[in-house]
């Protein structure tokens, strides 16, 4: 990718390569189908996601394809709602980490010198801090004021607050790697031969940024983004395990798994409560990772 003789833009070339990568295409297809399913299925399901009923712990059957939980709620519908929340949390969290990380890394890398040193030392400091601290402080300290503030604006604050705080908290604990990667990329691109050559040929800063730096950084960023989403989804499941995740009666994959894990015991296992949420989560994470790998190969990114 050093010198770029072909007439194709990096984007076109990447797309062409991505299409040839079968696991990545399969992963992307799976994700698309999953998203379509979780959006559409609840419209046709006879069970509202929070409808408590008397048929507790029903096995998977024609009525309840994936069985029911302790409150007699249909697991499939809850899984769909959980998927929506988990995917939204994953994507929004990753986007937040993207915005912070890219800005931070790009500024540090591009300006360089003392500012770079200070900014990257700051990243080092945060890096050595267990993220659970930030998560808890953010979740517990930000939620009440955020809620008051929303209520002040006359918005129905109730459920959205925890979700927003969750976005912010997860984004805020996962931007560090992004910042480091972007900085490294910008730093190395600034001094690369083709940038110098371009500059020698009389190209302006704008042209260099547009033609060389942004497309190359974009590749890394997109790749890393697809790998951050699974990380955030897993982290949310850990927070749910601690009881800091999504508020009941809402569900996320994490909270469903945390409920299901409690069912694993030597005497009697309501297997559907753990098998379906965990299976769904693992498949989705696999798909996301395959897509991420495919994108990485397509953009020819190293070290992300």
């Amino acid at each position, binding site marked *: 990718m050093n010198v770029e003789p072909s007439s194709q833009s990096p984007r076109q070339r990447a797309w062409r390569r991505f299409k040839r990568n079968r696991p990545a295409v399969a992963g992307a297809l799976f994700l698309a189908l999953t998203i379509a399913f979780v959006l559409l299925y609840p419209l046709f399901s006879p069970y509202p996601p929070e409808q408590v009923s008397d048929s507790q712990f029903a096995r998977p059957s024609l009525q309840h394809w994936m069985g029911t939980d302790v*409150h007699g709620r249909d697991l499939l519908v809850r899984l769909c709602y959980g998927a929506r929340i988990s995917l939204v949390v994953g994507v929004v969290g990753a986007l937040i980490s993207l915005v912070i990380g890219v800005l931070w890394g790009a500024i540090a890398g591009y300006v360089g010198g003392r500012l770079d040193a200070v900014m990257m030392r700051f990243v080092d400091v945060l890096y050595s801090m267990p993220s659970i601290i930030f998560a808890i402080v953010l979740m517990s300290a930000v939620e009440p004021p955020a809620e008051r503030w929303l209520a002040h604006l006359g918005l129905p604050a109730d459920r959205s607050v925890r979700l927003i705080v969750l976005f912010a908290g997860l984004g805020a604990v996962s931007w560090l790697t992004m910042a480091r990667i972007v900085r490294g990329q910008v730093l190395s691109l600034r001094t690369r031969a083709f940038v110098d050559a371009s500059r020698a040929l009389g190209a302006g800063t704008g042209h260099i940024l547009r033609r060389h730096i942004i497309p190359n950084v974009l590749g890394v960023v997109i790749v890393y983004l697809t790998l951050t989403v699974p990380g955030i989804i897993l982290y949310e499941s850990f927070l749910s395990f601690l*009881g*800091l995740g999504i*508020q009941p*009666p809402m569900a996320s994959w994490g909270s469903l798994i945390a409920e299901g894990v*409690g069912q694993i015991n*030597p005497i009697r296992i309501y297997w559907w409560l753990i098998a379906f949420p965990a299976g769904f989560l693992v498949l989705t994470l696999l798909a996301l990772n395959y897509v991420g790998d495919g994108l990485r190969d397509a953009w020819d990114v190293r070290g992300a």
Partner: protein
Amino acid sequence: MHSLVQQRCPNILALWSLILLAAACAPQERRADITIINGAEPESLDPAIVTGIPEMRITRALFDGLTRLDPRTAKPVPALAERWDISPDGLVYTFHLRSNAVWSTGEPITSADVLWSWLRTLNPATGSDYAGQLFWIQGAEDFHHGRVPAEQVGLRAPDPRVFQVRLTAPVPFFLDICAFPALAVVPGQVIERHGDRWLHARPLPVSGAFQLGAWRLNDRVRLVRNPRYWDAANTASEIIDVLPIGSPSTALNLYETGAADIVWDKDLVPAELLDVLAKRPDFHTFDFLGTYFYRFNVTREPFNDARVRLAFALATDKAELVRKLLNSGEKPAFHFVPEATANYDPPEGVPCNPLRARELLAQAGFPEGKGFPRVHYAFPSAAGASGNMARKIAVELQQMWRETLGVTVELRQIERKVFYSAQSRLDFNLSASSWVADYNDPNTFLDLFTSSSGNNRTGWQNAEYDRLIREANLQTNDTARIELFRRAEQLLVNEEVPIVPLYFFAGFNYFDPSKIAGIHQNPLDEHPLQFIRRIRESAMAAGAPESSSAQSAF
């Protein structure tokens, strides 16, 4: 390829193998006679400081009081005091200490030790949450607040074997309180010398049936028989290991594979399995003095209106809740004080009555829930069974209120410390709560909602209620006392309704009765470690199916 790694990073691998070697060679401890799974890791083993039931089970084994609880009935029986005299007005107790009561280090336990221990608990600098148990003693509350010197507290040690206590009211449960950990006798000299780390001192003089062999956080507390205990002849086991375990599934796994003999904490039983477990011979359930309930914040709209509160209470179908979520021994609670409580005969309480509930809500200005303000039901997040149960109850309650009253209450799971801080600052609308008896008397429950109680946490203050409780505790006639308490509880749950009781706890434990003896079910879930023993023959015959190969290999 491995050889290459070894060449290049010898330091890491060498370190690794060194540590492995060290672990393999570490001396293996002797296996305990009995291993008990006990609930969360003890925050402390200082009897003046502990607040949780799992901790108290251990401190009771380490430090004895003037009385102790009988393993069958949980009634107070003589311990360090072999007998006592009570003045006719019920205000002065004179305890006579045993002549064979000695510390595990050999020195005699004197009335001066008792005096020192009780004053220490009263001293606010000790940080005892249970100092209030001693406020029945004359001058104790004033001393606690620094208003009078120690000499003016109604405690006297006229003789090394005689200890005298003067009370402010003739409460019938004072001997129960004497068995409470906060009033246990602790070694003053060691505490003064070592400060907060006094439990790490060796030798550690103890007054109870067991010595503290080892205390490793999140690993185990090892208790070793104290041969100098006055009742050492009746101590059945040489070594008892108490394991702190937070997760019900881990507890069950350990028990099922034989790594533990006894599991006893209501927090350690997986609720979903109760229907299966309850049928097994090694599963034991019994009435236990504790109530799960929810609090209203009566200082905030809309629950400042007693009609709204009563409507919520009537709309709460407790029987349904118990049937659906708690299928073993718990009983729906229509009133606050559990039925099994001594010295008491509870009122009828609040039934479930959806029609009347809707009527009341309409009267209060919210017909069919219309115009009802946005309110939330707060409950704490916690690991273990109680956290899950709190969540399940919240989900069911929300549904009941929505169906019966047309009101949608938001659920809010809050981190534990934030939850309790908000609860005590009255920053909530509805708040999940529970209360467990400290001693077997209605006062331990009803005292909660007096105006001056720090545990009130509803904002509800009622002069009539305060008067009833105060008079009940001054009353020496049993029938009259019961009547006063009944009247107070009636006011609490039927008329003013600052709280809604949901269910009475049940106690659980599992152990194989053909292998373990000496555990009796009683309403305080109190099982003195001293009397628990392994039945030898059957243990030999059954040939413990545990991971024995793993145990013996090293």
